[in-house]
């Protein structure tokens, strides 16, 4: 079967300097890939390369990225724009910053939808409300009528997820979606993302430095260090049985809660 997304020996350079070198991975439909590593290891750059958001200075200098069999690295910008949104959705680390501060949330969600399909405002609001209720935003009507600063960080983050999911993309790219959130909120957002996968079969790439989160969500894990791929494989293998010394060191640095309760983490 043709994988949904395939990256082959991708090297990304910023101003001629390689930031990511020789990274390859595959993603099947409905699969979640966790990309972990320290800050500055090139996690976000991989994500941007897939999305085509490297900016003017960034360039995929070697290797190809295939989405549903089409090479996206040398796709014209116009065609890529059609992919971004309906096919690939993205959730940013700080969704509050990703939203326009002086316009209401609902209008911005409508704008996203109207870019890709013919839709009335009322219909967009109706769909947004439906999805919001599903991911635990009870007061949908008020939220659509609010400015981003009137809502909490967790709410903004869920609006980001909601906006990305409204177009029902096959692939969701999440760049540190819960890093700015408290643990209790993080858990809810995580459950919502997993629910999205169950209902719509969305594949996800989850970039995070939180190894606990990656182990709870991902099917496969890619470990990166200073732009290079250190380890890649099924979650259980990477977390517990990897031979790579860096991966080991990274996993040993993660602190676990020591609990007596049975049936908790197998650590």
């Amino acid at each position, binding site marked *: 079967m043709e994988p949904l997304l395939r990256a082959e020996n991708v090297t990304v350079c910023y101003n001629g300097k390689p930031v990511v070198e020789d990274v390859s991975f595959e993603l099947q439909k409905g699969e979640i890939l966790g990309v972990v590593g320290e*800050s500055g290891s090139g996690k976000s750059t991989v994500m941007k390369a897939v999305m085509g958001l490297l900016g003017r200075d960034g360039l995929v200098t070697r290797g190809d990225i295939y989405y549903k069999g089409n090479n996206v690295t040398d796709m014209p910008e116009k065609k890529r724009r059609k992919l971004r949104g309906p096919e690939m959705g993205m959730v940013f680390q700080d969704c509050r910053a990703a939203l326009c501060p002086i316009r209401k949330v609902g209008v911005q969600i409508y704008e996203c939808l109207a870019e890709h399909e013919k839709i009335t405002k009322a219909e967009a609001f109706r769909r947004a409300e439906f999805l919001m209720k599903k991911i635990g935003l009870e007061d949908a009507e008020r939220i659509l009528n609010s400015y981003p600063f009137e809502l909490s960080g967790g709410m903004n983050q869920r609006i980001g997820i909601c906006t990305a999911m409204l177009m029902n993309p096959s692939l969701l790219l999440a760049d540190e979606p819960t890093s700015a959130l*408290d643990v209790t909120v993080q*858990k809810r957002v*995580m459950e919502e993302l997993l629910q999205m996968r169950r209902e719509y079969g969305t594949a996800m790439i989850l970039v995070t430095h939180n190894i606990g*989160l990656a182990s709870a969500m991902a099917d496969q894990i890619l470990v990166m260090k200073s732009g290079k791929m250190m380890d890649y494989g099924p979650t259980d293998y990477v977390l517990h049985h990897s031979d790579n010394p860096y991966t080991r060191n990274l996993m040993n640095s993660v*602190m676990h*809660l*020591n609990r007596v309760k049975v049936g908790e983490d197998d650590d």
Partner: protein
Amino acid sequence: MTEILLEAEHLKKIFLSGKTSLTAVDDVSFSLREGECLGIVGESGSGKSTIARLLTRLLEPTEGKIRLLGEDITHMSGKKLRSVYQKMQMVFQMPAESFDPRRTLGNGIGESLRNMGISRKETGKKVEELLVLCGLTPEYAGRYPHEISGGECQRAAIARALAVDPLLLICDEATSALDVTVQKQILELLTELKEKKKLSFVFICHDLALVQRFCDRVLVMHQGKVEETGTPDEIINHPKREYTKILIDSVL
């Protein structure tokens, strides 16, 4: 029994903004013995950092008393307050931002020593010692905050706090901005200091696993109030309050 180092009694802080007011810290009392490490955990907005700022007198409490070694420091000012800072020092969350970007690390670390009237030559020597103690090399004294990594900068910040030989370190999310590998190194450094120098800590952190590893006692905060206190193992394994349970179950 060891002596009580720090005592907070019915601390309260109300922030006023226009007509609305926000009670950030509501009737919080605790005490810290010598050589003990007290962890304060809670979600953002629960008042953890406000407590740190009250304890270090960076904010004025609305009500309540703070005692350091039996002495009331709640309303101290000027010279007297400065002598308090020789016993109590703080390590902040953003290491790079807590240093003056236009001055070298050595300058920042040695500032407190020079203020105490120690000669430049001796200050330089002490700064080198401190850097080595915190796992850096003496060359770091000549570097600027933007030239080094976050982990190195946090080490320098700890060195700066240790310059005056304090009894108590107040760490406000001292490891939160760091990668896990670096976080582990910093925690090892703090543990070493705790044993070598018999330092006491108030350790503010939202990571329960970290607190469990490092602290002797934990204070769980929720909406400005203390939900629960106890040893980390006690709280993690047998939480009494509903909120604590939710908090612990959310840890991945």
